[in-house]
């Protein structure tokens, strides 16, 4: 049998996708039901042999398409063969698809911790840990420790959640300091004091006993040095930020210099570059100076015109203060107008 590609057949791209097949050429589709005789999916082994019976699931008609939804998701790493009947014949066409398996990396590594700098504010809210591989869940606090200069481990520094905060791919962990210890006047803050004290040094230690989902331990033990500086307790005012603008007809970066360290993960999703007509400019953002600066590199050279950098009001600094409010602001103290975004414009 020869595998053919067919524009009439929409193959799965992900495990939980269905198969769609254009059956408008079939005369019986309205009356007699179409089913396994017309569309059958087989599991194909390494020898190229198809399974003895088709994969079972549900058929439905949606517009011109016969939809096949298997009872269980298609599996990554397996090859499937879809057999379709040619209208008004006893002949079949065969089409293969394969969902590529996740590649197991050779070693498990902690790639980066954000904020990446050493000098961090006393009211730091969170760390992000980026790994090259999905990690085992539910044991982060067994492997991450905050140790003061005297070698004492703070067992209560971080928020204990029933479920840890992992990205869907399992490669990024968000670890929050216990907000009760950051917010002034809250009971845990008064009993235990803040986790980080201004002027003190700490080490964040990540054990190499932590394993990825494939059972590989991290290749290194990691120690991040921390020097605690003043808390961020004042509003973010973007008009205090400075920008360096590029020259026309170049692809030089536009640099924004913040007055503080901004949240790495939110920088990636909360800042866009637009032209005067709100068309997004293609390009990418990179962080500099340990997230105190960002730079936008355009895909194409800059043209003459007016541009604006749009900051979503949910953008936060590393202490969890966003463009609207401070994390531990008392609600009634100061009312600021509610906005969805703020902009910095520049002209070339």
């Amino acid at each position, binding site marked *: 049998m020869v595998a053919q590609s067919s524009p009439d057949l929409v193959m799965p791209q992900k495990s939980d996708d269905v198969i769609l097949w254009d059956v408008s050429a079939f005369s019986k589709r309205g009356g007699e039901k179409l089913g396994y005789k017309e569309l059958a999916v*087989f*599991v194909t082994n390494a020898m190229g042999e198809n399974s*003895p019976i*088709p*994969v*079972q699931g549900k058929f439905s008609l949606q517009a011109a398409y016969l939809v096949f939804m298997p*009872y*269980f998701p298609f*599996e990554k790493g397996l090859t499937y063969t879809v057999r379709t009947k040619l209208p008004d014949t006893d002949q079949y066409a065969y089409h293969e698809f394969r969902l590529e398996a996740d590649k197991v990396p050779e070693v498990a590594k902690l790639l980066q911790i954000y904020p990446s700098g050493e000098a961090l504010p006393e009211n730091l809210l969170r760390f992000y840990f980026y790994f090259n591989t999905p990690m085992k869940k539910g044991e982060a606090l067994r492997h991450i420790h905050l140790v003061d200069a005297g070698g004492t481990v703070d067992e209560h520094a971080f928020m204990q959640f029933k479920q840890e905060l992992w990205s869907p791919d399992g490669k990024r962990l968000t670890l929050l300091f216990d907000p009760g210890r950051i917010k002034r006047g809250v009971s845990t803050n008064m009993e235990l004091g803040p986790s980080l004290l201004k002027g003190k040094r700490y080490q964040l230690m990540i054990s190499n006993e932590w394993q990825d989902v494939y059972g590989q331990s991290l290749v290194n033990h990691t120690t991040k040095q921390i020097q605690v500086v003043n808390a961020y307790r004042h509003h973010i005012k973007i008009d205090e930020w400075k920008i360096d603008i590029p020259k026309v007809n170049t692809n030089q970066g536009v640099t924004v210099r913040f007055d503080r360290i901004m949240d790495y993960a939110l920088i990636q999703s909360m800042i866009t570059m637009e032209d005067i007509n709100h068309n997004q400019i293609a390009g990418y953002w990179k962080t500099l100076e340990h997230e105190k600066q960002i730079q936008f590199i355009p895909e194409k050279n800059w043209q003459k015109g007016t541009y604006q950098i749009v900051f979503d009001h949910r953008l936060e600094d590393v202490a969890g203060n966003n463009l609207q409010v401070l994390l531990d602001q008392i609600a009634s103290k100061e009312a600021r107008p509610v906005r969805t975004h703020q902009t910095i414009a520049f002209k070339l």
Partner: protein
Amino acid sequence: MMALSLGVTVANGQNVKSLGTMVFNDEGILFVGDNISGSILAFDFTSAEQKRNDFEINLYNIDALIAAALGTAHGSVQVNDIAVHPKSGEVYLSVTRGHGLDALPALLKVNAENQLITIDITQVPVTSQLLSKLPNIENKIGLRGTGRSAPTPKEVAKSERSLRTLAIVAMEYHNGELFVAGISNEEFCSVLRRMSYPFNGTESISNIEMYHIVHDSYETRAPIRSMSVKTIDGKDHLVAAYTCSPLVLIPLEELQNGQKVKAKTVGDMGNGQPIDMVPFKMKGEEMLFVTNNSRSPMVIPLKGLNGAKAVTQDDFERGPKLDVNPIMPYGPVGKPVMFSGASLRIDLLNDSKFISLNRDFETGNLDLISLNTMVPFKLHNIVGEKDVPVQKQK
């Protein structure tokens, strides 16, 4: 391996994590144990047609067929139990699809036409009951004495299994009640749970102790492996088989909530682990067919259990006993019978046939085959006198 999968949400909102031990009642309610979520599901298949006795089932390489139907690779399915529908005679199979974190429960059936059909369990009317005093999912079966040899990878894998996999080991339905054998989270953990159906959220839990002849000890932790409700000496009893392989009787009236019940040990089949206990009739006489993962099946005449002596340590010389001990097998435990290959799970298909999930002796394949209750054997693996035709010289 204990799967902590995402599960499948069924019609009553219960998230099913696994499908294991099964039993039907006479109307066609299928009770299935979900060890991982610690609950029993009661799927309603009562609307099936009456056509038992009309067919037999022989499906070879059934695990390959199941894997295909579920869209996965041959090695990625495990059949946990089989049960025969009391009206349709169709054979239901509880299956685990995939391994570890990705494992999902599946239910399939084989119909009279020998077709394998996946059941969409999200569409079946269902009720469920959550069990209490469940063994902690984090606690594991221990690694124990392997003599002078280092533990093999399989022994280590066994020791890594969660105790929760023993929460629901065997089930029996009798007279509006479900009996569930397994272990609890207590020190004296071998328990029999008793609950009425339709479920009302309550259960009665009794702790079971029995004298084990082969081990010469009183045991309270090993779960009952298989059981059946029968009338013995005029009273309803659970006839139960344990690993290595005592046969005990427990009067149903003693199974009261919170009671510690001493089972009556009446016999011992010898070393090995019982799998299933299937009541059937042989020439009108009531029998129990007890399969075992290490011995030939035993056929036990039920009448032999009437008036059977309950034994204690005082009835024997002290010390453990092996199969070669002159007193073994002990008591009214019937006879071992010839059997084709090894039965992983067995049930009664109809009046004259068993249905067995069978490991074939020669190919090692997993087959679902019908076997005569009188002679539970297939001819395909033996060649004898009658297979060799008389060859006449010209």
